[in-house]
């Protein structure tokens, strides 16, 4: 069996791998989002591509986890009697777990991110609010300030800058949409990271369970007793 301290080390390594892969997804998605592409295409991209990448990465991480486990186990298995080794490999533990983890019941199936197509009323208001405030302030000030021209000029400029600011902000709509999608994808990936971790830990449980059963089964095979008796007398597989 895999010792608990080793298991912890594997889990730690796996968590690092997950974080790294999530960062890679983010990098890839944001790289495209930052480009001056058709906004409709980008919306579709933001909606479907992160999930696609997640599914892909989940499979690679599954292999990584199985690699970590098998590496540990192989060290032990190499010390077993050749007949037991043979039985062990015949069980094909890696494929068994892999098939389960990718089956309908065991697979990781991330949901689609919630990508908004338009800005909400609140967001729109918040975007143009400074401009409106500036203009309104300017208008009031222009009216309130006495008739001296130099003094009136200051609020008058504000009155003018306000609408310019609003037009500019509205023109920057795509940029803002992209930033909004980025925030949404960030949140989605954060959530998915947890889901991915949970799924891989489920795989881990399954693996350890299967491994336990396998060892029990192997225990019933005769040579293992001989092996236990002569633990120091290691019979390596040598071709």
């Amino acid at each position, binding site marked *: 069996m895999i010792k608990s301290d080793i298991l912890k080390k594997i889990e730690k390594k796996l968590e690092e*791998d997950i974080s*790294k*892969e999530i960062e*890679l997804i983010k*990098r*890839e998605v944001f*790289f*495209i989002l930052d*480009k001056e*592409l*058709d906004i409709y*295409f980008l919306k579709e991209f933001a909606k479907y*591509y992160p999930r*696609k990448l997640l599914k*892909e990465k989940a499979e*690679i*991480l599954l*292999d*990584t986890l*199985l*690699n970590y486990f*098998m*590496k540990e186990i*192989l060290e032990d*298995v*190499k010390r077993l009697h*050749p*007949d037991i*080794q*043979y039985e062990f*490999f*015949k069980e094909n533990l*890696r494929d068994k777990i892999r098939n389960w983890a990718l089956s309908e019941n065991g697979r990781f199936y991330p949901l689609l991110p919630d990508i908004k197509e338009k800005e909400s009323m609140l967001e729109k208001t918040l975007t143009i609010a400074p401009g409106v405030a500036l203009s309104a302030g300017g208008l009031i000030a222009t009216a309130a300030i006495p008739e001296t021209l130099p003094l009136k000029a200051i609020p008058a400029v504000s009155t003018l800058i306000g609408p310019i600011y609003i037009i500019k902000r509205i023109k920057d709509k795509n940029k803002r949409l992209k930033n909004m999608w980025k925030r949404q994808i960030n949140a989605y990936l954060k959530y998915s990271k947890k889901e991915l971790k949970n799924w891989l830990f489920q795989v881990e449980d399954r693996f350890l369970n299967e491994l336990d059963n396998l060892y029990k089964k192997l225990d019933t095979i005769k040579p293992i007793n001989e092996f236990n008796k002569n633990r120091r007398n290691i019979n390596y*597989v040598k*071709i």
Partner: protein
Amino acid sequence: MFLEAKSFNKEVKKFAEYKIYKQQVIEIFENYKNLKGALNDGVDVKSLENKIYNLKNNQFIIAVAGEVKAGKSTFINSLIKEEILPTDVLQATNALIEIFYSKKPYLKISYASGKTEILEDEAREVIKEKLKKVASIPEEYRDIPVNLIDLYILEYGHIPIIDEDFIKYLEERSGIENLKEVRYKLENYVMSRSKDNIPVRIELGYPFPWEFDEIRLVDMPGVNAIGGVHDLSFAFLEKSNAILFIHPIKPVESESLKRFVSSVITDKSKEALFLVLTHSAIFFEEKERLLEEAKRIYSSIIPSHRIFAVDSILKLIYEDLNKGKTLDEIKRESRHKRKWIIYFKDLAEEEGLEEKKAFLQYSGFEELIPVLENFLVSAPFSELAKILEIILDGYKEQISIYQETIKLLQTQKKDREEFLREIDRMQKGLKKLETYCYLILEEAATVFMGVHSPIEAQLNEIKMKYYDVFLNAKELEELRKYYRDAENSLNQLVKENLKQISEFFRKKLEQVGEQFKEEYNISIPKIDLAAIEETCRREVIKREPIIEEKVESLLENWNFLKPWKWFKSERTKKIIVGTKEIFDKEAFLKILCNNLLESFIEVVEKLRDEFYRALNFYKAKIGYILEEKRDRLEDLKKELKSNERIDYEILMAEKKIALIEKEIKKIEGFLKILP
């Protein structure tokens, strides 16, 4: 190949020898198949048969590209030693002309509508005349861009309306100004064209005086002023074994070549690119200097040993001399050879050179041909060696199987109990071997799968690199090139990684006679670029109103009562008389780019899946081989044989070994002399 046998040097001989070697390798393979019978020696016969099939049907494609009027046709004529391509005309076709050896003259012209025209067994002049008719611009249309008009009909399936927009489009793309003035010519030309008379492919077979019938020379349509080629040409360039870019020696600098290399052909095609500077006779005194200049200018694009200066006319004179004509006869027959004969005959006399030799030497072909030939045959030769090595390994395995069998049979004859024990011992050994194989497979999985595998990092890198490249493409041609580059990079990546897996297995499983080379049938799903383009095209056609100006008369609409309408300008109105479809090139490129991006993502994903499947392939193959070995032992165990039978089988096995050893000797000797 393109030179007389007498002028072959050691390097050139390779091409002639290739054909002989190839035939012998095919024979060796046939022998191998017979000797192998049903024995499993670990060689994948199907894959080997496939290699032999490719060998038999192999073609060497030499694409000849270059601007219109660069001298492509004369160059090809001088290569094939036959003046069959029309040279004194402007090439007017977007069609490729494929030229190959055939015992009887044969000309097939395929038109855009699917219609074909075939001329068989006709005289050279008839074929030449037909080619001239199909592939050259009629005199009256020399000043209009007929190729562009034909391309338009090919792309859109209908003839264009000759309006101002279309004329502007033609002027922009062709660089020809004032086309408005020849509008009637454009209209006449358009009216005479349809898909039924636009050729897309011309195949010319002829009994050329060359001995190598596997070469297919492809005369590419002239690249445009900015080095562009259309899709069909691009596809041909992709599969060419060598691309000869023809360019006049002066001026050496060529914008079209630079663009052809940087934005049109793929990086893979660049590896097959030669620069052939033509018309060197005109600047004979400066030839060396210009050649050096070209080597310096293009050093970053083409290695200097693949840049040549030639003169096709001089080579044609040499060919005429070879056919037994005298210089006086040649002078009389051809005016354009005349001045060169006078000049170079003098020069040859001055330098004390024999006439024939001199013309060949001055033509520059003596330098070009051996290098080209060597370049073309090096890959096929290594393929021959590869096949022989596979067969050799198979034979070695067969010998060890026969020796093992003889040993077992001898034991059986001597002591039946001992024989059974021997089989049990061997079965145990196989079991151990199988366990070992599983161990290796597990180790391989930990190395080649998962986030730390080499392929993952490389795939990510390629993906990011090409995202950037696609998105920065400015022209459709660039996008097409980059996409193929990306595909080629992915192919290379898979090939290298599979090689690494093979190495891993080979090292670990040498004792088992591991036989898997690079034959996993992994292919990158090809993307139907044409289909994507078609979809995009449909999406980006926008409708624009056709506006006409109309001037109302003073009497219309009580205009005479409205003083402001007394001016003509006030009575001029713009009215919509209809709509027309406009192709938005910018939008097209953008959408195409998006679609390519999506397709590329799919391809990378599929590639990863396929790569991982390669590991399973190993697993299955190893399992199968070991199981077969075990079954064979079990069969031996069950079978009770008489001593006579055993002696006979031993004798047969020994005979087989002797035959195999003979073949092995042959192959080893062969491998030693293979260049």
